[in-house]
């Protein structure tokens, strides 16, 4: 029981301490204990007991698949995980994506209060609910008892902690405020909370682990108008950048070691193969040093084959960041779905992509030409 939980705990911690939840490979193969991509956050295992309590509490809070915000208070106070078994377990991929895309925007930040205050029924951290749920789903399948035991042990300890998960999307605080102003008002911090946050913060400082991830109402001091507008602009720019019209899906492409990033419009390709060729062309100059001006026919041939080895072989893998902020290996899902969910591409060295690499190598060995092909 313990080992999977610890692995899970680690990953939840890392997800809390870094906005992008880079934990789980969602390939339907069950929970994998992976420490992804050299995230130094996993060393945040050294974070104080407070944080780990926090994480576990949130893990528990999120442990009821299918729960909407009104149910949070009950799951929170009582951890009636009996419900865990009753809730229908979601089919993994499509609905999860659907849910995440809608809930992402409702993620709240900045409520500085203890967990006991969630009685107010405010829908917090919805986005996280669904993110974590994806693996809780696996976990629930395997061992529904374990969260409960963990929870009972840790939960009371959290009531003094006024820390809320960090969120990935800016402007979220403000967007919630706009939707549910009445609720927000109820969530204003009270004096006791204020001082206890201070205490928490101070105690964290004395132990040397800063409560860097604590988020409070009104911090950082930015007008909600600004954060809301920025969030809306970011969303639009992802879609609109470079070409007018709603059809284009521009995503940034970065490559380890390249001095600058590129952007590609995923809609201009219809298969993974096309995308991979395009990426090859774009990034060939980085992998091979100077190119272009001195290119000869012979060199081109050489560069092509070498690039093929580089991209199709074991040296590089292409990953993408999906709507939840998880880093995934390109090629698993149908192309259309990939376009919908891909937010960013990254070409990384296989050695960095621990956990991804074996499969990449496997795949490339199995299928030299169609590395990114999906079931076709």
């Amino acid at each position, binding site marked *: 029981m313990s080992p999977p939980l610890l692995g899970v705990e680690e990953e939840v911690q890392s997800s809390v301490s870094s906005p992008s939840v880079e934990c789980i490979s969602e390939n339907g193969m069950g929970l994998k204990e992976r420490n992804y991509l050299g995230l130094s956050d996993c060393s945040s295992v050294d974070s104080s007991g407070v944080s780990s309590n926090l994480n576990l509490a949130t893990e528990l809070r999120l442990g009821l698949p299918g729960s909407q915000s009104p149910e949070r208070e009950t799951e929170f106070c009582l951890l009636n995980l009996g419900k865990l078994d009753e809730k229908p377990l979601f089919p993994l991929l499509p609905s999860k994506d659907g849910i995440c895309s809608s809930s992402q925007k409702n993620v709240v*930040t900045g409520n500085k209060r203890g967990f006991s205050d969630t009685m107010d029924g405010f829908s917090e951290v919805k986005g996280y609910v669904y993110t974590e749920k994806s693996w809780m789903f696996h976990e629930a399948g395997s061992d529904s008892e374990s969260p409960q035991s963990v929870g009972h042990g840790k939960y009371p300890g959290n009531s003094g902690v006024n820390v809320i998960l*960090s969120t990935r999307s800016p402007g979220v605080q403000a967007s919630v405020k706009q939707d549910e102003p009445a609720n927000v008002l*109820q969530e204003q911090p009270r004096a006791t909370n*204020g001082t206890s946050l201070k205490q928490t913060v101070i105690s964290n400082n004395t132990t040397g682990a*800063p409560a860097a991830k604590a988020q409070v*109402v009104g911090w950082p*001091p930015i007008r909600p108008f600004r954060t809301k*507008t*920025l969030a809306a602009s970011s969303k639009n720019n992802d879609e609109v950048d470079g*070409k007018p019209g709603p059809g284009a899906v521009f995503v940034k492409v970065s490559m380890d070691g390249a001095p600058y990033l590129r952007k590609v419009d995923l809609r201009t390709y219809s298969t993974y193969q096309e995308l991979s060729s395009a990426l090859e062309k774009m990034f060939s100059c980085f992998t091979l040093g100077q190119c272009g001006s001195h290119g000869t026919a012979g060199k081109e041939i050489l560069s092509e084959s070498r690039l093929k080895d580089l991209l199709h072989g074991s040296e590089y893998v292409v990953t993408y960041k999906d709507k939840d902020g998880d880093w995934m290996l390109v090629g698993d899902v149908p192309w259309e779905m990939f376009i919908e969910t891909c937010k960013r591409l990254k070409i990384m060295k296989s050695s960095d992509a621990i956990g991804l690499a074996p499969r990449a190598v496997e795949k490339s060995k199995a299928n030299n030409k169609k590395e990114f092909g999906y079931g076709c």
Partner: protein
Amino acid sequence: MNMNYFPDEVVEHVFDFITSHKDRNSVSLVCKSWYKIERYSRQRVFIGNCYSITPQRLIARFPGLKSLTLKGKPHFADFNLVPHDWGGFVYPWIKALAKSRIGLEELRLKRMVVSDDSLELLSKSFPNFKSLVLVSCEGFTTDGVAAIAANCRFLRELDLQENEVEDHRGHWLSCFPESCTSLVSLNFACLKGEINLASLERLVARSPNLKSLRLNRVVPLDTLQKLLMRAPQLVDLGIGSYVDDPSSEVFSKLKAVIQLCNSIRSLSGFLEVAPCCMSAIYPICENLTFLNLSYAPGLQGNDLTKLVQHCRKLQRLWILDCIGDKGLGVVASTCKELQELRVFPSDPFDAENAAVTEEGLVLISAGCPKLNSLLYFCHQMTNAALITVAKNCTNFIRFRLCILDPVKADPVTNQPLDEGFGAIVRSNKSLKRLSLSGLLTDQVFLYIGMYAKKLEMLSIAFAGDSNKGMLYVLNGCKKLRKLEIRDCPFGDVALLQDMGKYETMRSLWMSSCEVTLGACKTLAKKMPSLNVEIINESEKLESEQLELSFDDRLLVDKMYLYRTLVGDRKDAPEYVWLL
């Protein structure tokens, strides 16, 4: 020769040259005669707290009033610390002014609640009304804006900045009558909804005096091009959507017309932007004095840097932190005239990507000798950096530093940032506004009390160890007008030690500190010229809580006190207790 021998008209004429509010206030205190002359000739009045005086008394004293500036909610309302319906309603003011014979021409509001009814009443009550400026206000819709457009026949300025406006898409812009040709300034960047582009073009075409135009997100690039054709005389431009294919004909036309707009000194917006189109802007960059790209997350660090390199005359720059420390270095080496810099976080809750750090600030301080106003959001700061900045820059009037982790120590030495901020206040003797952040002890307040003699506004969060901190400030900063404190261990002892001090200040805000209800009651009782408000939003008023809520030992969540000439306000909601 004694001025009292001059006829009143002459004295009044002399007073015409005294324009600052402070000076006019001082003049009015010299003697009865000057008070009288001054009040009849006063046209512009600034009221920093709308609850410090009533509209009736304002009207009685200044019958010649033409321009009124009002501020409502306390500053921390900007950060969700004040409930929406706390107060700051402008309707009573407009109603009173409308009833009187005041010929109001200009109304400027900040952090007030403005209803559509207010706007409609405003638009119909003052035939010479010329200028409406709303900053961070809320409570109105585009219907109210339409009323202003339709009824103010001589409207010169409609400036909506960062307001929360419900957009009814009611074609407010089309409500400007054809006869309206007086517009000088139109800013609707904060509106989110569609507008009639053809109406906009016609409006701009018939406004030969138009100098300032700030568009919202829905105005596309080809409309921008047409508008610039009609108004090449613009001085201030806010671009809405700036997205096109660089090879398109429209874009070429835009490039051509921008070359003609050589009066543009201020550029903002880019709410949607395609970086590849930015090159068209370069020709006007040479003349820019104000550049605001803080709402343009579509521009990456290198786009920003490339743009800034052309802006050699820049005096004010508002930018997102994705410009990075290196980009700030480019700013430092290019913008030698820079006076004001604001760096906003593009992702306030993402601690991972440290876009700007203390390095960027040090570079700016070294390269921009005229810097006097700073707002800087960053992930970390060191004492050494602040000390260097203090050596490089001694002209700061405003210094606001926000380290995103509210209690972060100097990452190099693990020390609090007391010494760094101490150096800043020591070397910047003209400092009027200061915002602190990071790990701070009472020591920083000792420095502030000792050195910040001109300080007027101080914002503190998560700082200090004891009452001493607050006392150092209250005792030392003689010019202090606004003090706002959140989440600090300051309590009753600090609050009550010098109650008279608050009469010399506009307001004091304390939230999540250690002030008790009893102390607030004491203060309210002893100082009738102060309004002491407790904001208590707990809605769970069960019976035990009700009892508790009258226990003087209860720690108060939010307290806001301000001096006033008119006693308790009558429009406070239930959860605001007026002591």
